[in-house]
């Protein structure tokens, strides 16, 4: 190719050809000098390629800590942990005999037959028998001893033989996880029989007690990932929709919640309220029972001259009901977020707002048009209660505890649903322990999916720096997740919740590391552009020399 072009060159310009001929040819190069030149070019290239470029790349590279991507993805896909919920149910029989064991066996059998959700498993165990009849009476009186003995027992069934009344019948204690079952002694199945009314009854009772929890867990599993779908029992669309609504209402789990109770009034009255007593009477007991799961801070404020936002339709007077009405679709704009000081509380954790709105006496009573209600819940945010005072004349300047009672009842109900507590069963400790299990499971899922998201970000954005503490947090998350999962399998739900909580915190910390986003908008092209004034002029002689030498090699060869 080179030779050919030389040919053309000499043919087409005779004048230049003459000039070449007229000058002296340089002496032919020696082999040594030729090789020396080639070697020196080669060594320059070697230095550039093997030393210069790697050093440049290394020194300008962004630090990315190693993350266990494979493991993270597996967690996110739910391959590592398949949550199971083995619930231990203690049965306390008046006499431990072969009969009781047999009853247990038959009941367990019946229970396994009804249960169609394999992850949620109820296991019956015989509790230690009370020493004397007196001791048993004591247990009845305080009702907490058994739980404090072994907190991994989800429910205690006490079998009490009675002579009178319809048997078998049951009674769930509202403030302890205890189910009293009354039976007549002849209902204990004999060794030979395979079924009995008492066993079937027990199985049915237990199944219905835990039906809502099962539905919640099943719903949770089905929404999280397809991997679980296979073993999840099918839920009817209505149940599913209701559970969906419940879960969208509920606040995200946090170790601390700030509850803010605010009194809003469009005029200057009432400017005082007996909130301290009201809170102590109506809200504190509820918060105490939740204290195992989260902490709460409570603050209150009085805000006067609180007007509606101008963009919202003002209340209208309804002649029929003699009341001022708000339309249901305007309720979302009722809280004037721009002007009402409802800023979140300082400190970690979400703020739940509860608003008592006392309408002006010229606009009282103020009701919701569609259902004549006066309170509503704002999902994941809080609740509003319009307090219509009975007095005909002026609004009183202070609200007493009695006046606040309806509002406080509304708020405790709203708090329960904001907290995601199931509607049934009637026993509060049971509902709270259900919440514990649901929360543990959902935290494990959310921490795992955060890990998965982090892994994806790591893979998709090669230009973001990843500091070491992200890797450490990731490792800690995985350790906590593993522990939470193990505790779940062992049926130790409080410990599982604790580790799931820690895992969630660490996962969030890893994902929201601030220094990771800094260089997203500083791609590699910028780096090249900054160094181009150096790289360009250096590269040109290197490349030209290499090309020229290659050309001459080809020409000779």
């Amino acid at each position, binding site marked *: 190719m080179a030779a050919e072009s030389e040919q053309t060159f000499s*043919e087409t*310009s005779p004048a*230049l050809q003459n000039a*070449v001929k007229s000058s002296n040819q340089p002496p032919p190069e020696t082999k040594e000098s030729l090789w020396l030149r080639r070697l020196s070019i080669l060594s*320059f290239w070697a230095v550039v390629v093997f030393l210069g470029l790697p050093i440049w790349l290394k020194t300008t590279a962004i630090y990315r800590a190693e993350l266990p991507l494979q493991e993270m993805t597996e967690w996110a896909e739910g391959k590592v942990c398949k949550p199971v919920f083995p619930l231990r149910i203690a049965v306390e029989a008046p006499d431990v005999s072969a009969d009781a064991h047999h009853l247990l066996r038959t009941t367990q059998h019946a229970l396994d037959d009804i249960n169609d959700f394999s992850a949620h498993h109820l296991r019956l165990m015989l509790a230690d028998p009370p020493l004397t009849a007196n001791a048993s009476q004591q247990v009845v009186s305080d009702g907490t001893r058994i739980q404090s003995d072994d907190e991994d027992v989800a429910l205690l069934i006490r079998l009490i033989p009675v002579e009178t009344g319809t048997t078998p019948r049951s009674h769930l204690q509202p403030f302890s996880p205890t189910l009293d079952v009354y039976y007549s002694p002849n209902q204990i199945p004999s060794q030979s029989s395979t079924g009995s009314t008492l066993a079937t009854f027990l199985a049915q009772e237990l199944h219905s007690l835990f039906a809502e929890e099962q539905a919640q867990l099943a719903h949770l599993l089905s929404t999280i990932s397809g991997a679980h779908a296979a073993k999840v029992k099918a839920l009817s669309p209505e149940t599913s929709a209701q559970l969906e609504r419940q879960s969208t209402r509920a606040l995200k789990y946090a170790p601390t919640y700030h509850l803010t109770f605010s009194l809003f009034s469009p005029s200057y009255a009432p*400017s005082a309220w007996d909130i301290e007593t009201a809170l102590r009477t109506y809200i504190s007991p509820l918060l105490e029972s939740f204290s195992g799961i989260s902490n709460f801070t409570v603050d209150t*404020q009085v805000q006067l001259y609180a007007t509606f936002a101008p963009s919202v339709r003002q209340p209208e007077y309804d002649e029929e009901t003699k009341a001022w009405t708000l339309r249901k679709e305007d309720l979302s704009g009722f809280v004037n977020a721009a002007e009402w000081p409802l*800023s979140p509380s300082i400190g970690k954790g979400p703020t739940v707002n509860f608003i008592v709105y006392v309408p002006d006496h010229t606009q009282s009573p103020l009701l919701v048009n569609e259902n004549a209600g006066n309170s509503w819940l704002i999902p994941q945010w809080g609740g509003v209660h319009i307090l219509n005072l009975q007095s005909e004349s002026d609004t009183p300047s202070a609200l007493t505890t009695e006046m606040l009672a309806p509002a406080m009842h509304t708020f405790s109900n709203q708090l329960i649903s904001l907290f995601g507590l199931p509607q049934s069963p009637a026993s509060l400790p049971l509902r709270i322990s259900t919440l514990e299990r649901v929360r543990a499971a959902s935290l494990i899922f959310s921490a795992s999916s955060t890990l998965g998201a982090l892994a994806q970000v790591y893979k998709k954005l090669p230009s973001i720096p990843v500091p070491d503490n992200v890797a450490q947090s990731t490792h800690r998350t995985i350790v906590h997740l593993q522990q939470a999962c193990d505790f779940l399998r062992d049926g130790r739900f409080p410990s599982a919740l604790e580790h799931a909580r820690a895992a969630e915190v660490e996962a969030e910390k890893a994902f929201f590391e601030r220094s990771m986003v800094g260089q997203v908008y500083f791609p590699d092209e910028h780096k090249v552009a900054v160094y181009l*004034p150096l790289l*360009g002029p250096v590269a040109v002689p290197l490349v030209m020399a290499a090309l020229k030498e290659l050309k001459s090699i080809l020409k000779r060869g």
Partner: protein
Amino acid sequence: MLSSLCLVLLNALVISVAAGSDYHEQLLLRPLPQNTLLASFNFRSNESAAAFEQQNFRYFPRSFGQILQHAHAKELHLRFNVGRWDAENWGQRPRNGAREGGTGVELWAWVEADTEDEAFARWLTLTNALSGLFCASLNFIDATKTIRPVMTFAPEGQHANSSNLHLLHGTLPHEVVCTENLTPFLKLLPCKGKAGISSLLDGHKLFDASFQTMAIDVRPICGQGDASCFLEMEQTVDMVLDIARSKRPRDNPIPRPLPIDQLECDTSKLYNAHDTCYPLNKGTDPAWTLEEVFGKPLRGACPLTEQSGDEVNTVCINTPPERTVEVRTTGQFAESKLASDTVRCYKLPTGAHFDLVLPEQKMSTGLVRPDPQIFAARSINGHGQERGSTQSIIRNPSTTEAVEIVYLESLPWFMKPYLHTLRARVDTTYESPIKETYYRPAVDRKRGTHLELRMVIPPSSTLTLTYDFEKAILRYTEYPPDANRGFDVAPAVIRILSPQSGDNRGVYVRTTSLLLPLPTPDFSMPYNVIILTSTVMALGFGNIFNLLVRRFVGIDEAPALGAGGLKGMLLSKITRLRGLLGKA
């Protein structure tokens, strides 16, 4: 005589503040020379210490209270200031300067903490939280802008219950105070600017004033027994309005000349043409009403204030007794006269508008304005980009009493004073006025200079304080976007130790802030440096490389390219191209 009377009254009003209802507000109007009007708003709300601890907020704003609790701040003073108080004409500062700050934003607080580091961490929490609450750049108060004054500030509240208090002080002289700071300020009030005197506060007028300062002060107050402790929050606004300027209607805010026939001319003078006019110096006080001056009507009383007792008088006006003041309202009000009729106070009607109407009036007497205890001015001298000096002139006008002051400077780290050049001279004596010095030198990029001097100025003397300083060269990224404007240096704070005022709040005077020009680089410099260095390196590399890999031959042995130089090369290329085209 009159002046001293009205002073006594003002102090009495201030002191009576200490106990009483949970919420109280007061507006004091005082006409000043040159057709200006001083309006002093005061809002005070109390919360019992127990309710505050339990976070049951009634009049105390919740958002603010939570910040204080979170940062463990036991006493806090926050100031937003615009403009300069003209002491020569207007006399003594409102509230003895105890409720005003330096230009921009000033914050100082007593924070409870076990160690200094903990205190500083809490201070940062406090500034960050307040920054969000007041829409101000308070979060820029970092270690370089924070000092720990020793003599200048004393706590106003009673801190018997708390130990390990740390005083921290920070300023932002560059901060522009504007309406976005007023809105959160008003939201902290129980009546929120919807009723009471706060309904007069309007951002357009407030920030158009010749001087205005907004202050928030929180302090704990304990009764005789420890049980009755409460937390007092005082919000004050002092503003000096130019009456003529404020009366401009909002729809026509630009001053335009009046038609010639509406001008009031001095007809006693000779005119050579009909279109000239000497302004008539009428020597009268101008006419004004509250609504005209503030641009908004006063919407009656805030009903949360006490309806009986000493503190019902919400609006007071301090004028000579002969000045006509008419009240225009539809509701019920009450008037009372105090301090030999120089102060007229009004109890506002609830739910009805209230207005004061002052007609134009020729005055024969005036109030004697009390002189301030000192006059202070500070300036930067010198030239060049490297050094400069500052000069503060503090004058004691009293002919009988010496004044003892504490002078506090908080300088940014890039302004490095030479302490050996510090000179304080008094024109009447050779004795050094400096009694005590507290100096904490700056550390580059870590903290600023903190200088406190206790000085005594003899009667009718002037103290001149000078020191030289060096200007540091900043790093490229440390310059603000408007680097050529210069850097603001916080005002000096002067506290008058003696003669002391009646209350425990102290007497303060602040100088204006300084504008310090620093050497400013060309901001394309880094790229120029990169390109220049790269070019030099590339040149060096190219030379060495060519020396090593080129073959050197005699000039007559050089190949044909030399014949035409660049031109020849180009020609050969063109002919070659032509040949190729011709072939094709």
